[in-house]
């Protein structure tokens, strides 16, 4: 049986630092800092400037010597934006191989930024470590906001030794996959003289750095685990002269922060979730960038591309089989079907100029030569878009025009609307678009395409025509990305849409139908909604887990496949098991959220107010059967039934739960495999769900851990 020595040391970085091990203000150049990969570095003006020469990541590093293994140090630096950057621009400091990284919030903005303090605490394991100052720049590019690739100025880099707090009394550190925040430290110390400086309200957003170490004397082995947590509470008990510090992983920041104003200006473009919708990882990073976080590399992702149904009012958008659906725009045009050129499918419309002058085509809903009607529209309210691909045999201007009709054949005089002429380069398919609101009296619209000032024999090809109704307000959040690519019923269905003709192929309107059923407003974070509520809704729906570990590393993982390094953790009688319970129950609720421990069905009611219509909306997500049902209510737009399915799997997996107390193992991490051998219980194998380590200066709750399990099966 082991004899061990377990110690929990507590540090409060930046409060009472002592020895300055290293200090550099770059007054005399780069001070030995070396540019990393894809980085251009200069140090001529009292600061170190680094910027990407290519790619998104750039860095500079330097070895810091004179460290004492086992001691805790903080690297501090001041950083500012070097010039305007309307892209995400995040500065970070880390120590190679040690305890994650610390980051600034995104530093985008105009001109030279203001200095931001950046610091990272680590435990030295050698006398020399390499400190890395780095930056990350987003790839966002927006018309009108653009922005350079981004450069950062680092200054006043120091490395200081941190003193451990005296007077440790007791502490628990815990990691729990079912809790947000995932990691928590509750530490009681004799009230220190610096107690008033440990103010969780401080804009510095103070950290607590805990070093848990455990040495086994025979056979000799040792383990160390560091916890870099966000100080969240500081409670003094006067009679006992003790202070209890509560610290949590970084989800606590997202649980605190809420949307306070709608983003506007360039910021809105950078923070717009619709832009990042195709990748949930990108959407999460946009939020994490505001909190000094960034997802670790990973492949688990989800697609939240914003989608909307549409109908193409053109009955024959591409002349695939004939020219029904179009007529020559004037007597100077010979309209035909061409298979020599096509943007999509196998053919296009060709409009050949008979003599010098304009030539083009009208889209209609009947046969060539006998147009029965133009496209029906509703006037005055809805925005329509007319778009098509054009190609010319010589470089010429091309114009899109809308002609309105009050009846099937009565033109509304003087109401024609045309786009500005667009110069189309010879031989290049070019997409043209016109957005318009028909006049109030309009009931039909005739869209036409005109090549301007063609010579005899010049040809204008037109293909992939699309006329569709968008919405009354194109600035509406869910619908403003309304400039969609042309489609017809022959377009291949993809991950987001199914396409179909409403009647005969190439002779009827066609539809584009969403294959998801979520309410688009789930992509929007309304005022007052916390960052965590916003993200967790999307993450749950995708069946994924988002958490920040004790080293400030953010992960988006699939709980079914996520397997952290290490394990299996073995908890066995006659080896390390001190006490335990094995609970097989239909009763009981979970302390974290009061929901039943075990259930066979899930109903989630989503009730929200549609921001467009101000109507009450309601949707249900349902999974499982009715024997014992978990019922939840959500006041958010319906995101789909993913969360119900996910919760059902979790509920069924909790049929048997063991809560075990054992000798401490500092490598235990939720998600690892666990094997248990409890007296009178068949040997079990499952997944470790939570772990809590206890340390104490005087009590018996010391050097032990409490573990909860899930998904247990007889081994």
């Amino acid at each position, binding site marked *: *049986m*082991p*004899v*061990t*020595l*377990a110690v929990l040391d507590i540090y409060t970085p930046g409060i009472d630092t002592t020895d300055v091990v290293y200090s550099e203000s770059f007054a005399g150049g780069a001070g030995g800092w070396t540019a990393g990969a894809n980085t251009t570095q200069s140090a001529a003006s009292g600061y170190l400037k680094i910027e990407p020469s290519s790619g998104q990541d750039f860095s500079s590093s330097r070895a810091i010597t004179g460290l004492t293994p086992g001691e805790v140090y903080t690297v501090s630096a001041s950083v500012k934006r070097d010039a305007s950057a309307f892209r995400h621009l995040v500065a970070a400091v880390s120590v190679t191989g040690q305890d994650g990284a610390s980051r600034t919030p995104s530093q985008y903005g105009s001109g030279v930024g203001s200095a931001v303090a950046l610091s990272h605490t680590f435990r030295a394991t050698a006398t020399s470590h390499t400190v890395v100052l780095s930056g990350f720049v987003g790839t966002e590019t927006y018309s009108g906001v653009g922005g350079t690739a981004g450069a950062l100025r680092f200054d006043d880099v120091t490395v200081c030794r941190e003193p451990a707090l005296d007077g440790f009394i007791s502490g628990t550190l815990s990691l729990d996959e079912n809790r947000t925040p995932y990691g928590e430290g509750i530490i009681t110390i004799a009230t220190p003289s610096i107690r008033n400086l440990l103010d969780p309200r401080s804009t510095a957003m103070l950290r607590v750095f805990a070093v848990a170490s455990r040495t086994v*004397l025979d056979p000799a082995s040792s383990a160390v685990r560091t916890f870099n947590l966000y100080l969240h509470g500081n409670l003094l008990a006067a009679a006992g002269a003790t202070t209890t510090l509560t610290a949590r992983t970084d989800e606590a920041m997202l649980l605190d922060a809420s949307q306070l104003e709608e983003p506007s200006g360039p910021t809105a473009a950078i923070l717009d979730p619709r832009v990042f919708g195709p990748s949930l990882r990108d959407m999460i990073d946009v939020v994490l960038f505001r909190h000094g976080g960034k997802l670790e590399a990973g492949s688990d992702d989800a697609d939240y591309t914003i989608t909307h149904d549409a109908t193409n009012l053109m009955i024959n958008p591409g002349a695939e089989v004939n020219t029904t659906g179009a007529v020559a725009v004037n007597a100077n045009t010979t309209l035909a079907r061409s298979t020599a050129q096509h943007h999509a499918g196998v053919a296009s419309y060709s409009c050949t100029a008979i003599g010098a002058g304009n030539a083009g085509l009208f889209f209609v809903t009947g046969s060539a030569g006998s147009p029965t009607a133009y496209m029906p529209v509703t006037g005055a309210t809805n925005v329509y878009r007319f778009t098509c691909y054009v190609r010319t045999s010589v470089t010429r201007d091309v114009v899109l025009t809308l002609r309105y009709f009050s009846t099937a054949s009565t033109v509304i005089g003087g109401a024609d609307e045309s786009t500005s002429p667009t110069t189309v380069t010879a031989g290049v398919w070019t997409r043209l678009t016109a957005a318009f609101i028909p006049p109030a009296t309009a009931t039909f619209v005739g869209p036409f395409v005109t090549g301007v000032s063609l010579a005899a024999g010049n040809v204008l090809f037109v293909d992939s025509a699309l006329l569709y109704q968008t919405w009354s307000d194109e600035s509406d959040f869910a619908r403003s990305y309304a400039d969609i690519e042309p489609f017809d019923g022959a377009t291949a269905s993809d991950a987001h849409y199914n396409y179909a003709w409403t009647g005969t192929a190439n002779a009827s309107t066609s539809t584009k139908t969403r294959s998801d059923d979520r309410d688009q407003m789930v992509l929007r974070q309304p005022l007052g909604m916390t960052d965590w509520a916003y993200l967790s809704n999307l993450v749950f729906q995708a069946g994924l887990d988002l958490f920040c570990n004790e080293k400030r590393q953010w992960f988006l993982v699939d709980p079914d496949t996520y397997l952290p390094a290490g394990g299996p953790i073995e908890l066995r*009688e*006659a*080896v*390390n*098991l*001190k*006490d*335990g319970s094995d609970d097989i129950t239909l009763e009981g609720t979970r302390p974290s959220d009061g929901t039943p421990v075990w259930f066979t069905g899930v109903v989630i009611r989503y009730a929200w107010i549609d921001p467009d219509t101000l109507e009450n909306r309601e949707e249900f997500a349902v999974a499982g059967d009715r024997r014992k049902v978990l019922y939840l209510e959500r006041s958010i737009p319906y995101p789909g039934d993913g969360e119900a399915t996910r919760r059902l799997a979790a509920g069924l997996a909790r049929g048997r739960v063991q809560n075990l107390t054992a*000798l401490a193992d500092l490598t235990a991490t939720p998600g690892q495999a666990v094997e248990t051998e*409890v*007296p009178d219980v068949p040997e079990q194998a499952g997944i470790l769900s939570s772990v809590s380590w206890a340390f104490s*200066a*005087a009590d*018996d709750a*010391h*050097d*032990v851990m409490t573990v909860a399990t899930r998904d247990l099966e007889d081994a």
Partner: protein
Amino acid sequence: MTDTISDGVTTVTPDLTDGWNDTLTSRNVIHEVLGTAEVSVSLRPTAARSGTAKLTFLTSEADARAAQTLLGTAAVLTYATTDRSTLGMDFVLAGAATVELDDDSRDAWIVTFDFQEII
């Protein structure tokens, strides 16, 4: 032979140290593991010495009272003695500081106090 208790400013000098005991209490945790007679041990440093000392003031009631007052101040005190080399320590009052008239002599005053050594 001189024994003293001092807070650095005030010093009282009893006539003799009449009684002494001190104790080291283990803080090691003995873990009982299910299903085996063997135990696992987590080592922890013991607390510093604690115990009880008895000081005698042969005639001076005032000195005895001054000693009690000094023991009652909120300060780390120093106990020093010239003839018992291991007893000297910094300490704080951990329990009672009692002044008692000696039953036999009806003249000597005995101050008894519980201490916790400070390291």
